[in-house]
Every structure is written in structure tokens, then in C-alpha cells.
């Protein structure tokens, strides 16, 4: 393949270098470059540089692009990147350097058109080229020798963010390269002192570092930001001695920035300090990493400190003391709003002011709540603060949001901001849910379920708030089943759920059904729960939800009913079970055959799959299975077909693999049992499904069917004495049958002609050799006829494998150029 492509390369180069041609689109150039990169890395640069027609033509291409007066920026950018790629090996570097091409490419004064530098894609190509090239000492020498460092530093403040970012990466790469093993001066020098750098490189590193210091001391905010970004990159990617040298230099300006506390820099400063936390600098007190972080927090009296605290709380490697301090600060808004003001503790003036304005009050509370949730996710151990009081604060806050005012007088202003505020409600509910990990330390279950129930009952709860409430309820129920749980569920929860399933908003009905599904699944095996479920009115409302007007709701209802049926197996009183299953089956089959939307139909097939997996139900389901397989297999929706194949897979597993503990029928051998199982599958219509799907128009469906058939083939092949005569399939009158017959005939013909040419008249397979259409073929035979392995190989290739090759890419470029010419001819 590659050699084909290489032969096309000269022509492509000509087209690309031709200024009269409009350049191919960016993605083609990118793809071409990717191919070069791949080729280069495979052969370590050998192919491109040694292949005869290629090497000179590439060099020619590069020089012509650079000197041309009418080069397109996209082509120039591509050329620079290509040059960088070629120069990544010392051999390539020398080749290009000897021809003076490197200077042509990377010295912009040498270009035919100097203005092209104004184009951001050219600048980014230039940086990318250097980055690619910088694999060896000569490259570094080239960069430093030609004063390119200065240009890179300038680009660091480029107006294009991509360019600036790339410049930073390049600078870090250079710094890293300076300290890497191939750059250290003597092999005898070990360690990380600065002396290990060769003196001529010291000036390079110090040039970069000085630039960082200068940027940080600048008054210009964007410049400071770029400096900080570079600093954080260096901290996270470079090692000693760069780290400590740079840190020593930037410490002073950094302190100034931290103390100034400008709002726009907070995020980036924290990123820098976070990166510093991950380095050995943290443990050396003279580097003041911790001190700086602490200074960011200040005394909690600045507007920005809450944002800092929220960021610091999230840091992974943060020292404990600092984290605790940040936590104290970030929890302040929550506590101020929901606890009584303490006489001896004067309330923070800044905080008071911020809480009195609606917008800032809400954002502060949300920061507070989400930080708390984050800490809870890591199961953070609160030491100074009682988790009990925090949780009751959250509960109180949620109550305030729904208009209940606490008995004692609090921050009255905040209260009016909060009534009906969905944002705080959602955030608060998330946090309350997250706090369930501290369940054993809390004695607040009554309050928590009280407030959650209030939210579920309130007619004003927004649909999204209800969804969050359901999530929180689930987390609290699941975290530890408590003694009155069933009482709570059947007396308090179920009536609300019944009402919510009749809600006006379909979103609410949907999330209620999802919640019931999750709850049923989570309490699977709890016989008390399933009894409560089936004796309440919930199940009947579930069944009627199957006829909801909204497709999503029907789908959720199907899943919920499926789960309820599964749960009914754990119920001790089995009387109503069969009735439920019966009714569910009738409605579900109606959905599968008639529903106009895909979601409910998919859900039905999935419900069957999960029932089958549960294994208890097989006999009850048998009557419906064949209809499910045939309806699902002929559905218009490819996902329904996929799910049907998954169902088929489970069915195959359940039927074919022998259960070691099952009592075997007396006298039945392994073989007959297997044959019987296959017959059963045939009766279900499973093979029809698989073969039909194999020739489906949707590739994933074919792939899945093919995989299942391969599995089946293996199993049948393993069983030697399979009785073929009982496993005969009718191959007439359907699409897959025609295909099988065609292949069958083809094979027969080939065999027959083979027979003739070999001069053998007899046939060892007797009657099989005649070329008549055969109506019935046995299953193992069909599996042999179909070249499943080849089909599987073809199917695994992605659908665009033909058009995605480098060859077609090059041909496209060439034909586009030709087209262009023709067009010109047409026009004139």
C-alpha cells in the first residue's frame, strides 16, 4: 500500500506546490501529514528520506513553497510541519540543513511572502514544526543559534490562543530537553544540580526563565496569565534543576500577585499552586508553596477568598491544615444563612454584603454546597466541624427554598432570595444526597426524609428539582435500610409516587418511573418491599402508565414494570404474580408490535432480556419469546434489532449451556440434550432471527448476528454426533435463504468443476453434488456454507475503510486538481 502511495507522492507534491491550484481543505492536509508521521515513525525516517523519487521531490517541494511569492498560508503551514517532521532525525536534519532548507523554512525573513506570518495557521505550523523537530541536540542548536527562542517567547503572547498555547508547550519542551539525559554535558555528572547543564545551554534556560519572571511582574493581565500558564506547565512537566531555579525566581512576583488577589487571576494562580503541590517543592519550606496557598485564602475577608477556598477544597494533594481552613471559609455562607448568628462572633462584613444581594448570595451558596458535595464524595472526614450540624444546615436551607422559615431569626434577607430558587434547590438536593455517606454519624433521618417528602409533594417543585429529589431519596434509602423503611415507603412514599405518575409534565412522570425502577432494583430481594409494592396501588398505576401518551414515559414504564415483575418473584404470596406477568405481557407485546416510537419497543426487548437473565421465568415466558424474537428482529429500529440479538444471546446461553446442578433427564445423553436444546431454539425462531440479521442493512446488527452464529458453529462443531436430520431449516422464500442457496450452489458448482478438472467422476459426498435447489438444509451445513469468518472480518472493518486510506486521499487531491483544470477549460 505504502509503495503505491509513495509513487503518487511526486505528483501530489507538484499539485500542492502549484500556486495556481487552490489548496485542498485543511483536513486533507492534516490527514496527509498524519500519514507522513506514521510512515516516519514506522521506519524511523528511513522511507521518506531514502526513497529515490520521493526524497528529491519533497526537498524540491519545500524549497519551492518557501520561495514562492504566491504561497497559500495553509500550504506553507503544512510545509513547515512536514519539514519539522523530516528533520526529527539527525539524518534528515543534516540533509535539510545542507541544502539550506532549514533556514529557508524556519527563518521567516527568508520566505517569499513575509506577510504570511500574520496568518495564525502559519505561526502555529511554525511552532509545531519546531516541536516535531526538537528530538536531538542539533535541532536545539539550530533553534538557539538562530535566535528563535526570542520569537517563541513573543508568540507566547500571541493573540491566537492556539498559537500561545503551542508556544508554551514548545518552551516547556525545550526546558525539558535541556535537562534530559542526551543533553547533559558529561556522562559522569549525576544529580540534579544546575552544573549538569552545559554552560551554553544555561543561557537558553535562563532566557526562558527570565521571560517568565518578566511576564509575572508585568502590569498587563493577559501577559501575566500567559506567564502563569507557562509556569504551571513547567511545574507539572519539568524536573530539577529547572523547577527549583525557576521557582526561586518567580517566588517574589508570585507573592505580589497572590496578595493582590485580582479576581481574573485566581483560577490560573490556583492551577499554578496546584501544580506546585505535586512537585518536591512542597516539602521545602523555603519555597513557600503552602504559604502562598494560605495567602490566597487571606483572612476570609475578601470577596475572592470564597472562590479560592472552593478551588483549594478540590485540590487532591492539598495539605490537611490548609484544606481545613479552606473548608471553614467555603462553608461560611451556608452556615451564615442557616444557623443562628452567634453573639460573640461578629459576622464577616464582606460576606454579609454578598449574601444580601440575590445573585451573589445564590452563587456563594451554590459554591458552598457543591464543595460540600465534593468532599462528601471523597468521604472526607470532617474533624473541626460537626457533619451533623452541616447536614442540618443543608436541610434547613432546602426548607427555606420551599418557603418554610426557620423558627429563629436568621439572615432575613437571604431568606427572601431563596424562596423557590431552583438552582439552590437542585444543588442542595445533590449535596444532601452526597451526604448520605455519613449516614451512620447522622441522626437526622426523620428531618431529611421529611424535607425530601415535602419536595416530592410540593406542587411547585420544578421537574428538574423533582429528579434531584428522587436521586437523593434513593441514596438515603439505599445507604442503609432502617427499621421503619417499609413503613415510610408504603405510607409516605408510594402515595406521592402514585400522584407523580399522574403528573401533567411528562418529565416528572418519566423520572418517577425511573425512580421506581431504581428503587425496585436496589431493594431487589427484600421481600417486605416487594410485598409492599404489590399490595399498594403503585403496580396498577405502573401498568396504566404503559399507555402513556409520551414515548419516553412508556419506555420507562416498561422498564419499571419489568423490574416489578422481577421483584414479584421474591414475594411470598404468589397469587397476584401470574396475573401481573400476564397483564404485563399482553401490554408489552402490544407495545412491541404497535408502538410508533422506538424507545418503548427497545425497552420491551430489554425487559425480556433481563427476565431471561433472572432465569426464574423461562417457562412463563416461553409462549411469548418467539413473537418477541420475530417482531424484534423485523423492527425498523436498528437498536431494537440489536437488543433482540442480545436477547437471543441470553436465550442461547440459557438453553445451550448445561446447568451443572440441574437434574438431568434419566437416560438422556449430552448429545441428545444439546440437540433438544437446538430444536427448542429453532422452535423459538432464533435461527431465522440470526440468519435474517446476518443480511440486515445495518452493519452492527450483521456483526452481532455473525458473532452469535460463529459461537453457534463452534458449539455444533464441538458436538460430534449431532443429529443433522432433526435440525433442518427451510431456506426457501426468505432473503437469507436465497443467499444461502446462492452460496450453496456456487460451492457446488466450484466443487463440480473441481471434480471435472481433476478427472474424478465419483463423488465422495454422494447426492450433495447435484446442482438442484435444495429446500431444506441442516443447520450445521448452513453454518459451513456461509463463510462466517470472512463475513466477520469484513464487518469489523469500519464502513469507511475504503475511502479512508492515504492512497484515496492522495487520489482525491490529484483528481481535485485535475477537475480544477477541466473547470477552467470549461469556463473559457
Amino acid at each position, binding site marked *: 500500500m505504502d509503495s503505491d502511495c509513495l509513487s503518487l507522492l511526486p505528483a501530489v507534491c507538484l499539485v500542492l506546490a502549484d500556486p495556481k491550484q487552490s489548496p485542498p481543505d485543511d483536513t486533507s492536509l492534516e490527514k496527509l501529514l498524519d500519514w507522513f508521521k506514521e510512515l516516519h515513525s514506522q521506519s524511523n525516517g528511513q522511507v521518506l528520506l531514502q526513497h529515490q523519487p520521493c526524497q528529491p521531490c519533497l526537498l524540491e517541494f519545500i524549497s519551492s513553497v518557501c520561495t514562492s511569492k504566491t504561497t497559500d498560508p495553509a500550504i506553507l503551514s503544512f510545509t513547515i510541519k512536514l519539514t519539522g517532521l523530516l528533520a526529527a532525525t539527525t539524518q534528515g536534519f543534516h540533509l535539510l540543513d545542507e541544502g539550506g532548507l532549514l533556514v529557508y523554512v524556519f527563518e521567516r525573513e527568508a520566505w517569499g511572502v513575509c506577510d504570511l506570518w500574520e496568518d495564525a495557521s502559519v505561526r502555529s505550523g511554525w511552532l509545531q514544526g519546531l516541536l516535531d523537530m526538537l528530538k536531538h541536540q542539533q535541532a536545539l542548536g539550530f533553534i538557539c543559534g538562530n535566535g528563535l527562542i526570542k520569537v517563541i517567547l513573543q508568540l507566547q503572547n500571541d493573540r491566537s490562543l492556539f498559537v500561545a498555547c503551542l508556544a508554551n508547550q514548545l518552551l516547556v519542551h525545550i526546558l525539558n530537553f535541556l535537562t534530559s539525559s542526551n543533553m547533559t554535558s558529561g556522562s559522569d555528572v549525576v544529580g540534579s544540580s544546575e552544573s549538569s547543564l552545559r554552560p551554553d545551554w544555561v543561557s537558553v534556560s535562563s532566557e526562558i526563565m527570565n521571560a517568565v519572571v518578566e511576564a509575572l511582574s508585568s502590569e498587563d493581565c493577559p501577559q501575566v496569565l500567559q506567564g502563569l500558564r507557562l509556569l504551571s506547565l513547567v511545574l507539572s512537566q519539568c524536573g530539577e534543576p529547572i523547577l527549583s531555579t525557576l521557582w526561586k525566581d518567580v517566588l517574589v512576583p508570585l507573592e505580589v500577585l497572590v496578595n493582590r488577589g485580582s479576581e481574573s487571576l485566581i483560577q490560573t494562580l490556583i492551577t499554578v499552586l496546584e501544580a506546585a503541590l505535586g512537585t518536591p517543592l512542597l516539602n521545602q519550606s523555603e519555597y513557600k508553596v503552602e504559604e502562598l496557598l494560605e495567602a490566597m485564602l487571606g483572612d476570609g475577608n475578601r470577596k475572592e477568598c470564597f472562590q479560592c477556598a472552593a478551588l483549594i477544597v478540590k485540590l487532591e494533594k492539598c495539605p490537611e491544615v490548609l484544606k481545613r481552613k479552606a473548608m471553614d471559609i467555603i462553608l461560611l455562607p451556608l452556615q451564615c444563612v442557616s444557623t443562628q448568628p452567634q453573639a460573640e462572633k461578629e459576622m464577616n462584613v464582606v460576606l454579609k454584603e454578598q449574601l444580601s444581594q440575590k445573585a451573589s448570595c445564590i452563587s456563594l451558596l451554590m459554591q458552598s454546597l457543591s464543595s460540600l458535595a465534593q468532599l462528601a464524595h471523597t468521604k472526607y472526614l470532617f474533624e473541626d466541624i460537626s457533619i451533623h450540624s452541616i447536614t442540618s444546615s443543608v436541610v434547613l436551607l432546602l426548607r427555606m427554598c420551599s418557603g418554610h422559615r426557620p423558627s429563629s431569626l436568621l439572615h432575613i434577607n437571604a431568606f427572601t432570595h431563596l424562596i423557590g430558587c431552583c438552582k439552590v434547590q437542585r444543588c442542595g438536593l445533590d449535596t444532601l444526597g452526597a451526604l448520605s455517606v455519613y449516614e451512620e454519624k447522622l441522626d437526622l433521618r426523620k428531618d431529611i426524609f421529611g424535607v425530601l417528602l415535602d419536595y416530592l409533594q410540593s*406542587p*411547585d417543585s420544578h421537574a428538574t428539582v423533582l429528579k434531584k429529589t428522587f436521586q437523593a431519596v434513593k441514596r438515603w434509602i439505599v445507604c442503609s435500610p432502617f427499621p421503619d423503611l417499609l413503613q415510610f415507603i408504603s405510607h409516605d412514599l408510594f402515595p406521592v409516587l402514585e*400522584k407523580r405518575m*399522574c403528573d401533567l409534565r411528562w418529565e416528572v412522570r418519566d423520572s418517577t418511573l425511573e425512580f421506581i425502577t431504581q428503587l425496585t432494583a436496589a431493594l431487589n430481594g427484600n421481600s417486605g418491599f416487594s410485598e409492599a409494592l404489590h399490595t399498594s396501588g403503585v403496580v396498577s398505576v405502573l401498568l*396504566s402508565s404503559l399507555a402513556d401518551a409520551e414515548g419516553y414515559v412508556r419506555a420507562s414504564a416498561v422498564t419499571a414494570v419489568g423490574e416489578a415483575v422481577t421483584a414479584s418473584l421474591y414475594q411470598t404470596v404468589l397469587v397476584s404474580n401470574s396475573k401481573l406477568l400476564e397483564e404485563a405481557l399482553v401490554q408489552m407485546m402490544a407495545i412491541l408490535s404497535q408502538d410508533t416510537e422506538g424507545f418503548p419497543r427497545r425497552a420491551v426487548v430489554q425487559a425480556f432480556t433481563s427476565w431471561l437473565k433472572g432465569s426464574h421465568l423461562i417457562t412463563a415466558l416461553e409462549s411469548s419469546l418467539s413473537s418477541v424474537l420475530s417482531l424484534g428482529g423485523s423492527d425498523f429500529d436498528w437498536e431494537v434489532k440489536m437488543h433482540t440479538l442480545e436477547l437471543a444471546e441470553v436465550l442461547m446461553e440459557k438453553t445451550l449451556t448445561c446447568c451443572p446442578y440441574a437434574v438431568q433427564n434419566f437416560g438422556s445423553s449430552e448429545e441428545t440434550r444439546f440437540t433438544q436444546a437446538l430444536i427448542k431454539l429453532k422452535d423459538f425462531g432464533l435461527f431465522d432471527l440470526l440468519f435474517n440479521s446476518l443480511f440486515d442493512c445495518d452493519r452492527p446488527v450483521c456483526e452481532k448476528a455473525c458473532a452469535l452464529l460463529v459461537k453457534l458453529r463452534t458449539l455444533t462443531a464441538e458436538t460430534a454426533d449431532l443429529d443433522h436430520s432433526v435440525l433442518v431449516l427451510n431456506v426457501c422464500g426468505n432473503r437469507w435463504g436465497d443467499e444461502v442457496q446462492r452460496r450453496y450452489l456456487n460451492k457446488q458448482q466450484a466443487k463440480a468443476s473441481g471434480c471435472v478438472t481433476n478427472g474424478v467422476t465419483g463423488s465422495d459426498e454422494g447426492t450433495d453434488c447435484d446442482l438442484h435447489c435444495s429446500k431444506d438444509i441442516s443447520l450445521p451445513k448452513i453454518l459451513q456454507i456461509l463463510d462466517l469468518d470472512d463475513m466477520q472480518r469484513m464487518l469489523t472493518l469500519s464502513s469507511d475503510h475504503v475511502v479512508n486510506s492515504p492512497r484515496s486521499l492522495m487520489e482525491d487531491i490529484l483528481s481535485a486538481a485535475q477537475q480544477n483544470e477541466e473547470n477552467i477549460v470549461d469556463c473559457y
Partner: protein
Amino acid sequence: MKLYCLSGHPTLPCNVLKFKSTTIMLDCGLDTTAALYFLPLPLVHSPRLSKLPGWVSKDGAINLEKKELLDLSTIDVILISNYHCMMALPYITEHTGFTGTVYATEPTLQIGRLLMEELVTFMERVPKAQAATCWKNKEIQRLLPGPLKDAVDVWSWRKCYSVQEVNSALSKVQLVGYSQKVELFGAVQVTPLSSGYSLGSSNWIIQSHYEKVSYVSGSSLLTTHPQPMEQSSLKNSDVLILTGLTQIPTANPDGMLGEFCSNLSMTIRAGGNVLVPCYSSGVIYDLLECLYQFMDSANLGSTPFYFISPVANSSLEFSQIFAEWLCQNKQSKVYLPEPPFPHAELIQTNKLKHYPSIHGDFSSEFRQPCVVFTGHPSLRFGDVVHFMELWGKSSLNTIIFTEPDFSYLDALAPYQPLAMKCVYCPIDTRLNFHQVSKLLKDIQPLHVVCPEPYTQPPPAQPHRSDLMLELQPPPMSYRRCSVLGLPFRRRYERIHLLPELARSLVPSEIKAGVSVATVSAVLQSKDNKHVLQPVPKPAPVPPSKKRKRVMEEPPEVLNPKPLLSGAVPLEPFLAMLHKNGITEVKVEETADGHILHLQTEDVLIQLEEDATHIICDHNEPLRTALRDLVLRFLQKL
């Protein structure tokens, strides 16, 4: 300008505004909550109700606004803002000597008539016990049981009016359209504006040339069936009288509607019946529309809806013909042509059936489970009483209260113990406090007048400071029987100048852009319009007989003295004095100007901003000379 507040009920207002020689009554709502003190009036004999310990006395249950405050016969016009606020009309127009006009929009009149007729039918179709009034005597009332002895103002309770009275009262109504300007005696102009609350509901603007009073009563900003509220015309009011805000500020109508639907569908799915006590017009249209959309998704397709009221048919049909009073979206349906409300389709497909009463067709076609809409929301009279008796015993059934006018617990009291489920979803689409404060910020009235309850949080939620009006300056509040002097003075009156008079004027510019002219004319005031006419010419030299009368001609024949304007500048004046030989002048500065003491002449000249005095005893020539000097600095008109 005065406001007499005859009703303290914030949503059933009755105020009288005296403004520029007109007396305008703003609404006359009827508070029927007193009905709750009475036992229900069953259509069918109910052994249970008759066994209840009670006082047999049927006076009707009417709470009339206080009328001792002013003589109702002096009222010139009554402005009605919506059909709920006109239910007391017969009491005012029929027995008080009222001779004025009532202004209302057409839907308000028609639906108001329906509601009155319904009320009368409800009252008249049950056999009446003897009227009893003795118990109202304070001495006896004190001995009565239960809540009755605590009832206040029982003397103001009145017997329900009759159909004749309704007809007579409504014959005094004159119809107006939105934005139509109606002149009242040339003194003020009144204009109804759409208020968005119900079909034909209006706010009123009452304005003279220089004053504007807005009356906002029962308005809504929600998108329901009526035309949206017109806000911009309310701008620049001197006084805004604000009544009829939502009675349930904590219940959001959308949430309540959702609650209504889910409870309804839950009950039906469980095989129970739903009873909705409601008025026969208003929210019921929205409920039906919402159910129309909800029915299919909730599988209520086959459940019958019954609407039982003596005026059910008219109400449903009237709603469809008032297209011009509906919201845009419903109006445009009329051009398709389609009925604007979907209940037409419900009726067509037999999902909604309406009957005048439970007797007759209904009893034969009645099928359960079903949903019944019927009145009266107080549960004291109307067909709802029958359904309470019928369904109250089963816990499968649900009663859903949607009207906010009555306490549902009080309404249910005589039916206890009750097994049926009770759901309270009051749907009140009127403005809430949040919307009002936004509205007021927008229209910026100088003064706001409102019922007292709006100036403090609801008594049940004393901490909800968001559920009250907080304004700067604070609103003026009233309670029943208050008389408010509205806080603005009339300072100007518009006077027309006849063209010939205007032509005779000689304006002279006293400073850039301001010209002044003196006018001599005759002011004629007629029908509250004022016109300046030229002074009639003195009659041509008359024959001797009329000489005497000529002598009696008004004095304006004499030319008036010229008017002076300008100021006397100190320095030039001193120079002028000097020039005229007055040299010894002592100048003293005062708060208003200067005092010049001409020492030799012993004369004082006080120069003030708006006056100049020359105090000069016994020297008339000098005074005249000085006066002429002063006049030199002033302009004459």
C-alpha cells in the same frame, strides 16, 4: 379628592371615589362567606343533614357593604371591573334611590347575569323556611352556639335578591369596550382597560386634564384565556388604587393545575369519582382546556365529565362567542373557523356533558366513575350538596377545591365525618406580590392605595415579608369604613381661549422662550368646561333710556395698570441715584435683598426680590421721582 371604602375584603372591593364633582363607585363585590354559618340546602331531603343540630332560619346569606358612610343615592356611576365584583349590584341600584349609570363590558354583564341568575335559582328552588331576624339581636346572638355567636355584623346580612331585581339592576348597565373613553359630565373621563383576569375583566382609568387615577382590580399576567393585561396605559398615574390580588399568594396556579390533574387522574384510575365545586364561569374554562390536553396522556378517554349548573349551557356557549375579548391565540382560531375553546370538542365527542340540574336527563345518563363540576363552591347550596351526600362516604372519591374564596375546611364542616379524599388546589390567577412589585416599578404611580392586608405579611405566615407590598413611599392602606383623603391637590384646570380672544393678545418676551401677555376676558363655566371669551364691547352709545345700565357695565372697561417685571440691579441703581443728586446712601444687606437708606432725605428704599418699597414721609414729589427711577429698570407689559 376622597375615597370611601365600603368593603374591607381585598378581592371583593367596593370603594367610592369623589373626584371633581363626580361620585364614582368602583365595583360592588358581594361577600358570601357568611353562607358558611348556615346549613347546606339539600335538593333532596337528607336525613343526615336534617338531624344535625341547627338553627332553622333562612335569611339568605348576604353581607352587604356598609352604607351609612355615604348616601348611595348620590352615586353618579358605578364602574365594574369583572363579573365577580358586581354580585351586589341589585342591592345598590334597587333600594337606595340610585339614579346613575353602571358601566361594564359586555362579557362582564352577560356572565355576571348568569352568575346572579344561578345564585337566585339555587336559593329559590329549595323550599324556604320562615325568615327569622330576631336572633340577630345581640342579646340573643350571644346565647347561640358555636361559631354563630362570634359572627360579626349579622345585621348587615341580607336576603338574596330576586330575578326581577337582577333584571332591573342590569338594565342600568351601559356597555363599554376596552379603551373606549366615556365622559362623565365633562369633568372626568373613564376608560376600561383589559386586565387579563377573566372574560371582559377591566381596570379603569379615571382622569381629568391634569389628574389621573388608575383603578386596578383583579388583574392577571398569566397566559390564560382572556385578552392580556394592558399595562402601559396605567403609566403616569397620580394615584393607583390596587385591589384584587391573588388570595393564595403561596400557591402558584401552574403547580395547582398540575396538582388538580394528577389528583383527578389518580382518583379515576382507582375507580373513584371526582367532585369539583366551582363557579360556572372563569377558571372552569381553563380546567376543561387543561383536561382536554391531559385526558389522552392520562388514559381518561372514556371517563365522562359532567358540568351541572342552571346556566351551564349558556356559560359554555357565551365563552365561545366573545372572541374579541379572548387572548390572541384563541382569537385567531375564530378565523379558521374553529371554536376558541376546546370544550366545544369535548361536548361534541360526548366527553363533556352539561345539565341544568341533577333532575331530569342527568339522572338517567349518569355513569360512574366520573368527574362532576358544579356549584356552589361554598357547599351550602346548589347541586354540589347532593353530590357531597352521595359520594362523601367512600374513600375512593375525591373532592378537589379549586376556588379560593372559601375556607375548604369550613365548607366541609357540616359534612363531617367524611370518608372521601379532600384536595385543596386553589387556582387564583390574579397578580401575586412579585408580579405587582414588578408592575409598579414599571408604571411608577405617585401614590398607591390598597387594602390593609396587603401592607403586612399574611397572618398565617408572619415571616413572609415577600408576600406584602413594600413601596417607597409606603402605600396608603384602607380598611372597611375608612375615608381617605387622597394625597394630591388639584392645582390646574384647563381653560379654553376663544380664537378671537387669542388673536387680540400681545405677547411680549420676558426671557428667551417665555412670552407673557395680559388677558382681559369673561370666564364662562358650563358643564365643567371653562371658556375665556372676549369682553363684550360696550354697547354703542345708547339712547338715553339705557344710560343707566351702561353705568352698571363691569369695570373692566378701564385699562388695567401695566404689569411690571424684572429686577432692580443694585449698582446701576446707586449710580442712577448719584446722577440724580442723591449721594449719601447707606446700603444694608438683608435676607431678601437690600435696604437703601438715603440719609439726607431720610428715605428708605427696600429692594426685595419681588417687591420694592419706598418709605418716604410727607414728600410726595421725592417719592414720585424715586418711583420713576425705579421704574426705569423694570419692563412693563
